[in-house]
């Protein structure tokens, strides 16, 4: 039935396609046009805003730093998610339900709230500093809030659910007999992890990695609140240019450059991983 008429089969997608055209494609086209125009009054073609976005050391540094932040957070999140996945794999239904609950609780909690929690944890008189000083490990409070490391830790926690769920899903799909066979043949657990479990769970890890990358490099709230005023990343730069100093054309060009960078990286990783995974099947 669904294989019916070529056009009629897609009819039910039409309302959403219409909405996406009006509220997504058209605005993005306008964004591109504005980015190619000298000013907002009338259209005068120019590439000056792109030249500024791509040659100005300040802007370029921020773009690069934002993408690096995304990669750092994604790798760290993956490292944090695997132990949970391995635990999940060995648990019975009850244990798995508990783990899923523990993953969903922060995922469904507001990001501003979780960011606020990290401000309390990392702050001068925060949880970590007070505890470390009370047991006498440090004399002076450590500076953690408004640092790169603090930001990465907070972002790892915020994106951990997005990484843990797909990794759990692909770990749960691994045939237990493969693991038993490897162990029966005398392989150590570490060896089994490296040669059986890790490769078979990569699809989930890659899915989580892409989501975390796209999410953490655009995580405006955490970047500004935990990163502080001295670390500027692309979302804040775009916001400042657009709302702060009302340079719409420059902001539009930065938006396009940022969006393309993210899309290219996600697309390339997706492409590469598919190729890799196909090679593994063969």
């Amino acid at each position: 039935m669904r294989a019916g008429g070529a056009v009629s089969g897609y009819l039910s997608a039409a309302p959403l396609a219409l909405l996406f055209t009006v509220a997504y494609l058209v605005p993005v086209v306008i964004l591109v046009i504005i980015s190619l125009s000298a000013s907002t009054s009338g259209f005068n073609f120019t590439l000056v805003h792109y030249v500024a976005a791509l040659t100005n050391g300040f802007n370029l540094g921020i773009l690069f730093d934002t993408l690096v932040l995304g990669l750092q957070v994604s790798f760290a999140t993956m490292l944090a998610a695997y132990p949970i996945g391995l635990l999940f794999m060995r648990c019975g239904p009850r244990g798995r339900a508990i783990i899923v609950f523990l993953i969903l609780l922060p995922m469904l909690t507001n990001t501003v709230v979780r960011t606020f929690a990290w401000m309390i944890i990392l702050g001068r008189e925060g949880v970590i500093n007070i505890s470390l000083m009370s047991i006498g490990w440090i004399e002076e409070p450590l500076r953690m809030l408004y640092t790169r490391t603090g930001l990465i830790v907070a972002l790892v926690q915020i994106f951990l659910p997005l990484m843990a769920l797909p990794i759990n899903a692909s770990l749960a799909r691994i045939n237990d007999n493969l693991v038993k066979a490897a162990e029966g043949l005398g392989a150590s657990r570490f060896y089994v992890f490296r040669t059986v479990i890790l490769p078979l769970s990569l699809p989930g890890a890659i899915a989580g990695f892409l989501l975390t990358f796209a999410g953490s490099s655009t995580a405006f709230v955490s970047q500004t609140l935990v990163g502080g005023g001295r670390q500027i990343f692309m979302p804040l730069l775009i916001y400042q240019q657009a709302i702060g100093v009302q340079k719409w054309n420059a902001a539009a060009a930065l938006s396009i450059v940022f969006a393309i960078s993210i899309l290219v990286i996600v697309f390339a990783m997706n492409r590469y991983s598919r190729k890799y995974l196909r090679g593994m099947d063969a």
Partner: protein
Amino acid sequence: MLKLRNLSYETVVGLLAAASVILLVAPTLVILVMSFTGDFLLRFPPRSWSVRWYIELFENSPQIAASAWISLQVALISTLASTTLGTLAALAVAGRRSAWAVALDSLFMSPMVFPAMSLGLALLLLLSLLGMRPALWSLAVGHTVIVTPFVIRMVSAAVQQLNPVLLDCSASLGASRIFTFFNVTLPLIRPGLLGGAVIAFLSSIDHVPVSLMLSDPRVETLPVNLWILLDSNLDVRVASVSGIIVAITLVVILVLDRRMLGHVPR
């Protein structure tokens, strides 16, 4: 030797998993504790305990209450719109391999990776080109685009598990397409649909970039308001708002039917 190494593997994995779980849960606990502080500063652990910030929130915070109401309206509208339109779209594209289906699916999923701040700016430019000021409806439209991918993903997964024979049976027994949709398809994809709606709602409540770009003193959402409070001065009222949000979230998760989370592997 092998036993010993396996034991050390267990220990390492166990310790790392414990660390990750603590990392996952700690912020929520910190928030709950912090919301009962009696201090004027965000100090942990608090020196005194009270519910003063909850009282302050309910008695002296009209702005926070107003922004919460805006957020709720935007979330309800965008959830309703994205669930309805997203489900219809997912029925058309899920599981199909034709170029059209793949293109539409990629379009509908792309807001997940397209930077939201860029989309916010694009929407703002469209509004100003049309000579309009940001309003509740424009926020709701922006949020609908942002949350639709979650609905599509969840409903598509449910649609792909649908046994096509059931639809053929219904059709061959003389049921119309509309009758089949409401009596066969819809009940079967309901878990995915409800799960998608819940995630869409929570994502809308959570969203900042588009709301910030389209914000206006009249239409400021709750997270934007909280962001401003935190960015300017660390207002302790944020702790009590957070406490309430965490409590609501807990209730939502506990009330969620298990079947609704059927996408979760167990």
